[in-house]
């Protein structure tokens, strides 16, 4: 596939708007093409910068109060019409608040999952994806001491098809965590570990929106830590690595 034709759709891909089968083809291409990977990373960084800079204006409490008072004290032409307007306002506020709460929650969860996928892609596209290069968990685990405010166990991989490549420090919404990279039949799988209480959104496995995830992802909470296992390996392989971590913790 010619890169130029993909680059024109890169933003659509990163927005998760490329339809089903094309998304998988696009994934495969981005992972195998250094040029498109680098462009994807750059675009992700630009999108994050716009998102951060765009949240600039917040309304004052006085303005909020003024609007609320206007809504409540809207003049009524007649008793019947007035109550109709109040009822309509109540319906809008209730529906809007429920929708807002749902979308706000979903948006927060989706943002976490989206950032996890971004961290995975960005790290693999990096020229130095790991800070500690080792296949030995007894080397990688102590490397994190003093760098992250928690400890976690790495699983024994003997007699499995997984191999540890190394690890690095990472951040999710300014929360420090551990990022481990595993290899599984030429697929790279990332394992992220964060403190559950520091994460920006409440997560559970049911909050995954499979059709919006370009990778297979498994997440769970254990011992006050939130684990994410993400990669383009099959969901069975992702699940397999997740089980090893769960057994080790």
């Amino acid at each position, binding site marked *: 596939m010619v890169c130029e034709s993909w680059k*024109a759709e890169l*933003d*659509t891909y990163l*927005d998760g*708007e490329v339809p089903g089968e094309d998304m998988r083809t696009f994934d495969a291409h981005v992972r195998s093409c250094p040029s498109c990977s680098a462009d994807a990373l750059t675009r992700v960084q*630009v*999108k994050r*910068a*716009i*998102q*951060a*800079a*765009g*949240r*600039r*204006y*917040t*309304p004052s409490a006085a*303005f*909020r109060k*003024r*609007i*609320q008072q*206007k*809504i409540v004290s*809207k003049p009524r032409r007649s008793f019947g019409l007035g109550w109709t*307007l109040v009822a*309509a*306002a109540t*319906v*809008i*506020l209730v*529906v*809007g*608040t429920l*929708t*807002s709460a749902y*979308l706000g929650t979903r*948006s927060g969860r*989706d*943002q976490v999952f989206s950032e996890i996928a971004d961290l995975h892609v960005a790290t693999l596209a990096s020229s130095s994806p790991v800070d500690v290069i080792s296949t030995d968990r007894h080397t990688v685990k102590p490397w994190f001491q003093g760098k992250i405010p928690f400890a976690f166990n790495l699983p024994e991989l003997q007699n499995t098809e997984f191999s540890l490549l190394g690890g690095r420090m990472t951040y999710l919404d300014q929360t420090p965590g551990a990022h481990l990279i595993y290899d599984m039949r030429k697929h790279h799988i990332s394992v992220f570990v964060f403190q559950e209480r520091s994460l920006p959104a409440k997560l559970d496995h049911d909050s995954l929106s499979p059709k919006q995830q370009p990778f297979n992802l498994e997440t769970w909470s254990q011992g006050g830590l939130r684990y994410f296992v993400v990669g383009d390996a099959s969901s069975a392989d992702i699940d397999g690595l997740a089980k090893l971590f769960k057994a080790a913790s």
Partner: protein
Amino acid sequence: MPYFEPLCNLACWLTHDRQEAEDLVQKTYAKALKCSFSFLPGTNFRAWIYRILRNAFPSLRTGLKATETPESILLQRSDEQLVRQILEQLPVAYREILLLCEVEEMSYQEISTTFAIPMSTVMSRLLRATKRYAGLAAPVCK
């Protein structure tokens, strides 16, 4: 009040004037109450109320682009400030669609509903907005 803060944020970006933005948001909620019958339950409330705000913003409705006088370019203090400057230099139509996509995280379908334009137009407008942003960013970031 649903979406009060994001609506205020977008209104400020569109008008560049806090007072005008507050007027715009006030008009939006007043219109939303008045036209509550036009909201179909089960459809996208966010797109509906954003469309009301857009319709209430005169330069978008008439197709006129808000003329901007770029402020003198400041020395680089932070990436965020630079990004804001670049965003402010964008034509309103491009600024708006980038903010809805990147800040409000609207799907293309929601943007299509909010703007009442086809999905293909959403994608092409986003592409043009992105390219214009990149064009403005290149000399600033050197």
